C-alpha cells in the first residue's frame, strides 16, 4: 500500500532557525505523532518507537530514522522504517525544503513531499483508511512543527 502527499506550511522564523529545529531530536520527538522515544545514534540517524493506529489495528513500531541529502539550511530528506510485529510494517520518507518568502514577508516556507508504505495486517484491514490516517499524521506533524517554531 503506497501513498504520497505534499503540502507547504508558512513558518514565522527564518531558514536558519527552522533548519536547527529540523535537526533537533527533542523537537522532532515532540512533533512526530505517537512518538514514544527518538534517540540519536549518529549525527544523521536515530532509533525511534512510534505508536500508530489505523482503523482497528494499533501497533507500536520500532525502527530507524535517517536524515540524508542534507543541504543546510535549505532542506533534507527524512526517511524511516519500522516493524510493528504482527501488525505489519510501515516505511516512508519526506523531502523537506525551506524557501524564503516573497519580498517583504517574514519567516520562511516549508515544502514537503511525503511517500509512505505499509504492509501486513495494517494493509489488510485498514486499506481504505490508510490514506486518511497518513494525511492526518503528516498534517499533524507539520502543524506541531509550526507550533514549535512559533514557540521559539
Amino acid at each position, binding site marked *: 500500500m503506497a501513498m504520497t502527499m505534499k503540502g507547504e506550511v508558512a513558518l514565522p522564523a527564518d531558514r536558519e532557525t527552522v533548519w536547527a529545529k529540523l535537526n533537533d531530536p527533542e523537537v522532532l520527538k515532540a512533533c512526530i505523532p505517537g512518538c514514544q522515544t527518538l534517540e540519536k545514534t549518529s549525527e544523521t540517524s536515530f532509533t525511534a518507537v512510534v505508536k500508530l493506529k489505523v482503523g482497528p489495528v494499533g501497533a507500536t513500531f520500532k525502527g530507524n530514522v535517517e536524515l540524508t541529502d542534507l543541504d543546510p539550511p535549505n532542506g533534507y530528506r527524512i526517511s524511516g522504517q519500522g*516493524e510493528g510485529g504482527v501488525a*505489519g*510494517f510501515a516505511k516512508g520518507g519526506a523531502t523537506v525544503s525551506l524557501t524564503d518568502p516573497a519580498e517583504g514577508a517574514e519567516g520562511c516556507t516549508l515544502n514537503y513531499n511525503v511517500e509512505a508504505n505499509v*504492509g*501486513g495486517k495494517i*494493509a*489488510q*484491514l485498514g*486499506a481504505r483508511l490508510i490514506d486518511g490516517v497518513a494525511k492526518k499524521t503528516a498534517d499533524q506533524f507539520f502543524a506541531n512543527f509550526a507550533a514549535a517554531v512559533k514557540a521559539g
Partner: protein
Amino acid sequence: MSATGIGASVRRKEDFRFITGKGQYTDDVNRFGQAHAAFLHSPHAHAEIVSIDTSAASAMPGVAAIFTGADLAADKIGGLICGWMIHSKDGTPMKAGAHPALAQGKVRYVGDHVAIVIADTLAEAKDALEKIVVDYKVLPAVVASMDALKPGAPVVHDVAPDNAVYRWAIGNESETNAAFAKAAHVTKIDLVNNRLVPNAMEPRAAVGDYDSGNDAFTLYTTSQNPHVARLVLSAFIGIAPEHKLRVIAPDVGGGFGSKIFIYAEETACVWAAKKVGRPVKWTADRTEAFLADAHGRDHVTHAELALDDKGKILALRVHTTANLGAYLSTFSSSVPTYLYAPLLSGQYDIPAIYCEVDAVYTNTAPVDAYRGAGRPEATFVIERIVEVAARETGSDPAQFRRKNFVKTFPHQTPVIMCYDAGNYVASLEKALEMSDYRNVGKRKKESARKGLLRGIGISAYIEACGIAPSAAVGSLGAGVGLWESAEVRVNPIGTVEILTGSHSHGQGHETTFAQLVSERLGISIDNVSIVHGDTDKVQMGMGTYGSRSGAVGMSAIVKALDKIEAKAKRVAGYVLEASHEDIEFKDGKFTVRGTDKEIDFAAVALQAYIAHKFNGQDLEPGLKESAFWDPTNFTFPAGVHICEVEIDPATGVTRVDRWTAVDDFGIVINPMIVEGQVHGGIAQGIGQALLEGAVYDAAGQLVTASYMDYSMPRAQDLPNYHVGMTQTRCPSNPLGIKGCGEAGAIAAPPAVINAITDAIGHENIAMPATPQAVWRALQQTAPKLAAE
C-alpha cells in the same frame, strides 16, 4: 417413486442438527489439556528471513513452545506437495518449488507461515506472536501473472528462473492454424478471470492429538477428503505411517474446493502435538482465511474463434496465463490444464482446438480448485467468444449456438473429452421458453422508458464431473486414483449403516445417500445412517469435490447394495426353503417366484446374523458388503442459463432482474437439494461477475482481506431463480446421474457479462463488473437506448 426414494424432495436429515446449533465442527472439538496455536504470517510479499528471535516470545506467560521452519527441518518433516504432475509441451516436468509448512529461509507471499506459537490460551499465543522478532531482507515482488514471465522479473523459486511452472499445450496446433487460414470470419477476445477468495462459512481449523501410549496421532480437521489428507501427511510429509494416523473431518461448514488441500497449519498442529505432549488446536480467523486459504481462478486469456461463411465454427485457439501463486497447492497444477482446456469445446461441435497454458509463480497466495475448478474459466472463454462471434456476424446468439451445438452422441471432442449423452437443443429451447426470450425487445423498451439499460445474456455451459477413470487420470499425471468406496453394514434388526469415502460438507449426503438405500432395500430412510469423514471407520476414500459424490460415491454404494441383495437372497432362500435363484426382491420383500411365500428385509437381516437356517460351510453368517467403483468416464452435466440485467446508466449499478436455469443433471435423487445447489452456484457465479475480486497491490499486499473490501453476494444482490430441468440419462454409471454441485458457478459469470455487454453495447468490461466499472464502460460509448 416412494416418498423417500430416488426422485423425492426429502427434507434434509442433517438440517435439524445444523439449524439448532448441534453440528459438531472441528472447532467444537476440545481435547483434555489442549493448547492453542497461533501462526506468525509474513507481512512481506517476498523477503529473505535473515533471523528469527523467539527468545522474548518464549518467555511470555503461558507459552508452551514456538517452532519455526528450522524445527520442522530438524525433524525431517517433508514439505507440502502438489499431487498432479504436468509436463510442458517440450516434455519437461513442471517446476515445483519446495513448500515447507513453515518458511525456511524465504517468505514468498503476504500470509506465508513463519512460526507457530503454542500456548495455554489463544490470547497468550497471540500476545507471544507480537514478541517474535524477524529480521527480513525485503526483496522485490512480482504480483501479476503477466509480469511474472517478463525478463528481469523477481524470481519466486530458483527452480523456475523465469517463474514458469510449466508451458503446456493441448490439441492439434497445425490443424487449428489451417482452419483459421481458411476462415471467413475470426473473432478475437481478451479476458481476465478474476481471482477469488473461497470464503467457506466455517474457516479452516485443526486439532492435533498424540497418544504416546500407542504412538499414534489423531488430526481433527476441516477436510473434504480426510483419507487423502492422511495419505499425504503420512506418505509425503512423514507425520506417521497411515495406521498410526487417524484423520477425522467431522461436520464441515462448506469448502468449495478450499478444504481439499493439505495446508501448513493442519500439518504443523498435528506434528506439534507430539512435540509439546499436548493436543494443539487452531482455528483460522477470517483474515487468515483471506490470506492463506488457496484462492481460485486468476486467468488471463486471449482467444480466437474461426467461422466459415455460414457461421459454423471451424476452430478455437486459446492462450491462457494462469497465476498459481507462490507455491503449488495440492492439486493446483491440474486446474488450468486438464480441468480447464478439455472443456473448451463447450456444447459445440468444434473440429479443431488448440490451447496453450503458461502457469506462473507470483508472490501471492497459492491458487487451486474453487467451485468449478477450471470449468468456469473454460466456460467463460467459450461462452463469451461465442456470444461475441454471434454479435459480430449479426446472428441471434441463441440461433448461433443452436447451429453449432453437438447433436449426436457419443461425441469425441478434439481435446480428450468424449461427451456420452446430452440434448443441448432441448435445454436451449426450454430456457428460451421459460425466459420469454422472444419478448426481450419489449422489455428493453420498457426499461428504456425508465431510463435504464436492459441486456440479456445466454450461457450454454457444459462441465465434467466425477473425474475418472483412475487409469486415464493417472496417464495424465494424477498422483491418485479417482474411484470411490462404500461399505454397507446391515444390522441384525435391519437398520443400515453406509460407510462412504465421500465427504459431506453441505451437500446433504446423509439424506440423498439414505434415499438410495431406502429405494433399493425398501426400508425407511430413518433406518439408514451415513458414516463418513473418519479414517478409522471408513477404510479408504477419495472425498468430495468436482461434483463426484453422486456419480462416483453413490455408484459405489449401488455396487455394495448389489452384493447385499445377492447375499440376502441366499439367506432368504434358506429361510423360505427355495433356491436363491427363485427369490425375487421388491419393495423390501423377498418372495419365492410364483408363490405367496415372503419375508421382509429386516427378518432376513436377523436370519443372516443368527444363522440358524443355514450352515456356515454353505454360507457365511452376517450381512456386510463393500465395493469400490471406478467410473468408465466423466459425467457431462450441461444446460442453458439466461440472465437479464437492468443497468442504471447514471450510477452503473447492475440489477440482475431475471434468471432462468435449465440444467440436465441426468437422473435426480432429490430435486430440492439439486435446486439448492443450483441456487448456491448461481449466487457464487453472480458474485464473481459483479462483486468479488481479490486484489493485491503492486508490492504484493492483499488489500481485499476483509469483508470491508471483498464484497460477497447478499440476498439483495440476487434475483428469483427460475429453475427447470431436462433429463438425459448418464450411461457411465448405474444410477444414470451426473453432477450438480458446480453447475451454477460455472454457468453464471458469462451469462451475466453477456447480459451486461448486451446492455452497454460493447464488449470491453472485466469482472467484477462493479458499478464503477460499468459506469466507466458506459462512458466509452454513448449507449443507444432501445426506445430511440
